[in-house]
Every structure is written in C-alpha cells, then in structure tokens.
C-alpha cells in the first residue's frame, strides 16, 4: 500500500495535475467543454458552482470508468461511458431534490450541462479508459482545475464589466449609472454597464484573449495556421 501511495505523488503523476493547467488546458488547447464555458460565465458565482460540479462528476466518472476499464467491451464503450456519467449525475440530482431542495434549485440548470459537457467524455475516452484509478483521479483533478481557472477569469471579467459587481457584491453605486429623469428631462450619472458582456459571444472573445496571452508566453503552443 505504501509503495502505491508513494508512486501516486511521483513526478510523473504530478505532471498529470500540472499539465492541464497550462500546456494541455482542456478549454484553450483541447477544445473541450466550451458550451458550458459560454453559458454560465456571466457571474463569478455561477462559474464557480459549475466548476465544482464538474470537479465532482469528473473525479467520480474517471475513477469508476478506470476501475471497470478492463471489462468494458470496445464496441459499446461510448454508450457505457455516457450511461455511467448520466447515472452519476441523475443520482446526485435526485438526492439533492429530496433533501436539500434549495441547493438543487440552484444547481438544476447545471445538471443537463454536466452530462453533455464534453470535458467529461473527452477525459474518459482519452485517459480513464487506459489508466489505473490513481492516475485517473489525478487527471480528473488537473483537468477540472484547468477548466476552473479559465471559467473564473472569464466570469470575473464579465461580471465586473457587465454588471458592475464581484460575486454578487455591487461596487459601483447606483448614482453613477446614467439614468434618464422623466421629470426634469435631463440625465445624470456618467457610467454605463457594458451590455455586450452579458451576451454569450463575448465569452468567445475573452477566451480568445486568454489563448492569446497563454500562447504569447508559451510559444511552443502556437499553431501553424
């Protein structure tokens, strides 16, 4: 047991955690999980909740698939993986609905997004199917954090400029906002929220910005065309 534990934190295994943060980031390099990155990064809090749900589901799914990897027939592996992910997610959803209804209401939106999140299928297919549960666990952690930091950066920028708040806390007073006074016919205030930030396409621009910075720093990631 102790030898196994030692190897769990070996250099090779630590690479499984570090790589997805940068060199093989699931969003900016592997192009996985884009749909959810666009849909829920309007507020920082939502981005965080989504990331944590992905962390949880990815760890569970990676470990379960890795445990039974030698039993799964090749022909039907995609169905098997999808069924396992869906079962996990629905189980959690049903339990939340029964015992912590408030939390389940907050999360209900994300349930569908998680099942169809290609980050989970992508990692199951690419990693869990061919590796032991230990490394699969680390791979899940690494990839979820790689996903998390991009979501948080995008969510932060969109919330600050789109709604003038951080984690729901408004730091721009209402009196600054340009408003039209119907009684005097004049306007007051000088600041306006950037409505573009609320639209989904802006998330694409922001992710492109992240990619730009990342590849400018790490030039070996640059593509041919």
């Amino acid at each position: 047991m102790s030898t196994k534990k030692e190897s769990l934190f070996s250099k090779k295994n630590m690479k499984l955690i570090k790589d997805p943060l940068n060199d093989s980031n699931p969003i900016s390099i592997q192009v996985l999980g884009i749909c959810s990155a666009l849909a829920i990064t309007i507020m920082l809090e939502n981005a965080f909740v989504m990331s944590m749900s992905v962390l949880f589901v990815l760890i569970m799914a990676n470990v379960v698939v890795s445990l039974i990897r030698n039993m799964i027939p090749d022909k039907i592996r995609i169905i098997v993986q999808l069924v396992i992910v869906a079962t996990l997610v629905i189980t959690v959803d049903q339990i939340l609905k029964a015992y912590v209804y408030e939390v389940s209401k907050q999360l209900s939106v994300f349930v569908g997004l998680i099942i169809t999140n290609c980050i989970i299928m992508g990692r199951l297919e690419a990693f869990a199917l061919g590796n032991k549960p230990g490394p699969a666990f680390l791979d899940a952690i690494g990839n979820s954090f790689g996903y998390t930091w991009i979501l948080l950066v995008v969510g932060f920028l969109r919330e600050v400029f789109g709604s003038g708040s951080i984690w729901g806390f408004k730091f721009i007073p209402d009196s600054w906002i340009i408003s039209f006074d119907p009684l005097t016919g004049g306007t007051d205030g000088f600041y306006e929220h950037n409505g573009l930030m609320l639209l989904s396409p802006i998330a694409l621009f922001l992710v492109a910005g992240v990619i730009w910075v990342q590849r400018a720093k790490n030039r070996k990631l640059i593509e041919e065309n």
Partner: protein
Amino acid sequence: MAINKNSTGYTIRFSVVLVAICGSLLALLATSLKEPQQKNVANEKRQFILSAAGFAPMDSLKKLEKADIEKIFTESVTSNVYNYEGNPIEGENAFTIDIVKEHKSTKNEPKKRKYPVFTYINGSDTSYVIPMAGNGLWGPVWGFAALGADQNTITGIVFDHKSETPGLGAKIAEKSFMEMFTSSTKMVMKGEKYMGLKVVKGGLKEPNHEVDAIAGATITSNGVSSMLRAGFKPYMKAWNKIK
C-alpha cells in the same frame, strides 16, 4: 484476461448487467425519494402563492417549517377552477393542477386548459392569485400573479423557471425584476378593454401595462411576456370584466 471482451456474447451480457444496475439504482432512487420530493414541490408552491398574495416576503417564508406553511395555507386560501370561457369547473382540486404540465399538454389549445385561482383572505384584504406558465429559452417559465380586491391591479407577483441562463434569463426570478410589477401601478384591464401585461424592450408605451425587458435575455423576456399577455383573460371573463 480469460474472457474475450469483444465477443458478441460478452458484449450483450455486459450491457444487460450495466443496464440492470443503472436502471434499478435509478428506479430505486426515484421511487424512494418521490415522497420527500413531492412534499418539497408542494411546499414551494404554497410559499409562492402566499408570497404573491402578500402574506410575507419569500425570504421569511423560507424560514418557516413545512407544516406551518401548510397550516397557514389551508386556513387563509380558498380556490376555484375555471375553464377558458370563465365558467367554474366543479370537483377539481386547484392545488393539484400542475400548471406547467397543464400548459404543455394543451400547448396550442388554450380552450381545453383548466384555469385555477387561489383566493387569499386576510382580515378585510382579499387578493386573487393566478398561476400561469410559458416557455423560456431552455425550458418552462411560470409565475403567480396576485390581483387586488378590484380584480384588476397587480399587488404581487412571483416568477420561477426551470433552467434559464444564470445571470440572464434567470433574472426573472430575482427581486429587481419582480418589483417592477408592484413599484408602479400595473393593471390588466384598460377601461373596458382587456390588455394583460407585456414585457417590452426600449421604453414603455403603456406604463400601466408594460415593464422593461431584461437586457440580453430576449427569448426569456418574450416567453414571460406572452404568458402575461394571455394568462389573465379567462379570469376576467369569470369576473364579468369582459363580456
């Protein structure tokens, strides 16, 4: 490994076992958790109705026990069900009508729909809570609108949704959106004419019948708008406001 895991027989056996495990797990969960889940849903519905009727704001209702909510509800709320023509339907339990399912199953036939109304009496105050449902961007949206004793002016409103985008369409369930219906006078009838309510972009033309849409959430706003535009009509017929 001794077994050939790519043989057809093994593939079939494996899928049968997997389906059996997953299926029974889900079926077990769904049946054993059904009761607490249904209780939660019913409790929330009572909270929505009481909060729209002005008994107490949603936040403080959430702190009460389920049994207390049920007690207050049965003591102060009575209900009726109408058809599209505004005639009462006897022998229907208004509370058990799932307004979202009702809306879905009679999507293009509003005439077949059942229209429940909850009457809340508190001393001399009376308000009529009208449930309604519509479609947002990703899934259903629904709400409870309370009319005052004149059966015309909005006194309270609560919206909810299944899966609208957080931060955009989901804003319909936030205070800032719901308060727009009560911070100035909103009415269903304009004189003798039925108007309903609308959610519009870029300035209000009929300030008593319109509220501002949510920026960036066009489809959700449109869904709420069409739900509010038609939702009051059968009740106005029932109360003889439109002939």
